[in-house]
């Protein structure tokens, strides 16, 4: 009796011990495989992030020998209105975001619906619409600068031909931001494809139900396509907002902030402050303001998403 009880006990502890060895082995190898990524996160993200916040509290300048800690002075200078360009660049960027995000979402949504129809040459159409999104920003900017050239560009030539008023495009104070939005719309292919993926997940039977009820195109869109795609709309909206706030290459190449600072985008202003004027402490404060703004927008959309994003299989 005693012996068998003993063996029973040891049989119980042995697998436990074995499993803890296995767990420790898994932990070791798990950390080993992921260590480059974790290290990279610390070196290239976390470290610089902390350093950036510290820099934003100093007057660090490449050409100054001494750097002193100045507390919140940079932030005070930003918000007090002493730096006109700060508010100007913020306003410009907001205007760009407000104009671009709905345009990207609505146009790519409807393009995806068109591309999802059972049409001849569907895959060719998909290729054509996706292709511009892989063109390097530098090259696409060059192409658009040329298309939008006020004297020789294709756009004004076409408008002239149609007897419509021409535009100064990138050179007009009022038209520069809408023009830049237009150039970026050429590259919405990625967003379209994500919508297409969302559309392929909508069961056909749902539409058939509307057919039976005698509903038309609009009620299908209103009651099935849009609600079913809200998770995709949500994802695309967040990604487009984050991207739009950070537009840089287009700003740098197309206009350099001009004319008359009308396209002084926030990240372009930040780059100019840090790398042309070498005010890196002050520019770090700019970076943190951008970070907080993007955070606020993202959190806000996440919070409201509960009321308009429907996940399948979820009761309302």
């Amino acid at each position, binding site marked *: 009796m005693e012996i068998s009880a003993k063996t029973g006990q040891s049989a119980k502890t042995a697998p436990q011990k074995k499993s803890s060895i296995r767990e420790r082995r898994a932990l070791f*190898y798990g950390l080993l495989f992921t260590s480059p990524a974790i290290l990279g996160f610390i070196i290239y993200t976390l470290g610089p992030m902390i350093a950036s916040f510290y820099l934003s509290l100093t007057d660090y300048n490449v050409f100054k020998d001494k750097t002193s800690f100045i507390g919140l002075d940079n932030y005070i200078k930003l918000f007090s209105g002493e730096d006109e360009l700060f508010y100007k660049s913020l306003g410009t960027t907001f205007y760009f975001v407000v104009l671009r995000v709905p345009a990207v979402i609505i146009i790519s949504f409807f393009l995806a619906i068109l591309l999802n129809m059972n049409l001849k040459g569907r895959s060719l159409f998909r290729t054509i619409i996706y292709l511009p999104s892989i063109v*390097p920003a530098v090259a696409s900017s060059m192409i658009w600068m040329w298309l939008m050239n006020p004297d020789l560009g294709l756009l004004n030539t076409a408008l002239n031909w149609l007897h419509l008023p021409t535009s100064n495009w990138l050179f007009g104070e009022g038209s520069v931001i809408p023009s830049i939005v237009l150039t970026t719309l050429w590259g919405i292919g990625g967003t379209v*494809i994500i919508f297409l993926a969302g559309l392929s997940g909508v069961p056909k039977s749902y539409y058939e139900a509307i057919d039976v009820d005698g509903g038309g195109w609009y009620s299908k869109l209103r009651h099935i396509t849009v609600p079913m795609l809200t998770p995709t709309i949500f994802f695309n909206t967040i990604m487009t907002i984050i991207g739009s706030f950070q537009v840089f*290459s287009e700003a740098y190449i197309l206009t350099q902030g001009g004319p008359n600072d009308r396209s002084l985008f926030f990240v372009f202003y930040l780059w100019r402050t840090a790398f042309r004027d070498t005010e890196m402490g002050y520019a770090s404060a700019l970076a943190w303001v951008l970070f907080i703004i993007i955070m606020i927008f993202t959190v806000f959309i996440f919070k409201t998403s509960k009321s308009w994003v429907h996940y399948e299989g979820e009761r309302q």
Partner: protein
Amino acid sequence: MRESRLKLTAGFTALLIVSAMFIVPFLWLLRSSVMDLSQIFIMPPQWIPKPFHFENFKDAMTVVPFGTFFKNTLIIVVGVLIGTVVSSTIAAFGFSRIKWKGRDTIFAILMSAMMLPAAVTLIPSFIGWKELGFYDTFYPLILPSYFGGGIFNIFLLRQFYMSIPQDFDEAAVVDGATYFQIYWRILLPLSRSAVIVVALFTFLASWNDFMGPLIYLKSDSRFTLALGLQMFQGSYNAQWDLLMAASTAVVLPCVIVFLIGQRFFLEGITLTGLKG
């Protein structure tokens, strides 16, 4: 669901118009790249150049050292490609096929880096590289890819790895395989298409990168194509013909790579978009 003929025709026409709008910039680029300036100035514009000036390409490459830019870009792109593919597949393996304590928490923390605007880390990273004496070298552009290869790529590969049944690994463990053998012999061959997607995305991102080279490279002799093209614009503003020829040369490799890997591309975007 049956779509009415009228609706199909309307859809087809709409797509035809939109596609034309998407193609026109390419055509404008191509036709300008093989014209001389006098042809470019003709109003109304010609669509088919008479005659073709293919020597624009040769001229554009001699006006600025395009060969050097091309070589520099290639060095960076290949360096980044190797780093990204090796290090993101290894990390994704560790985040999906090995069960360890704290794994998902650490992954979530790493994912949060995607939310961080690049502008925040830009300045300290620049100061760091400069202090180390790597300003005006390729290291700041290549080396980071060897540390994880970007959380987005790890995320994409992890999604894929998690869709592969765990039985394979367990069978291999019973046979006494090490984790590295499972990664090398089982996961990598099974995830070939996902790895190709990562490689394609990485190629494009690195080829197209503008801000990185702009900040870290100073000498003309180290410029990449993206920077070189921009330099072109500065010094030869009115020479639209040469600028368009140079732009075509920069765009072409991307288009070729895309057309070759098209199938994988669309798959990859779907993978990240659907489950994201």
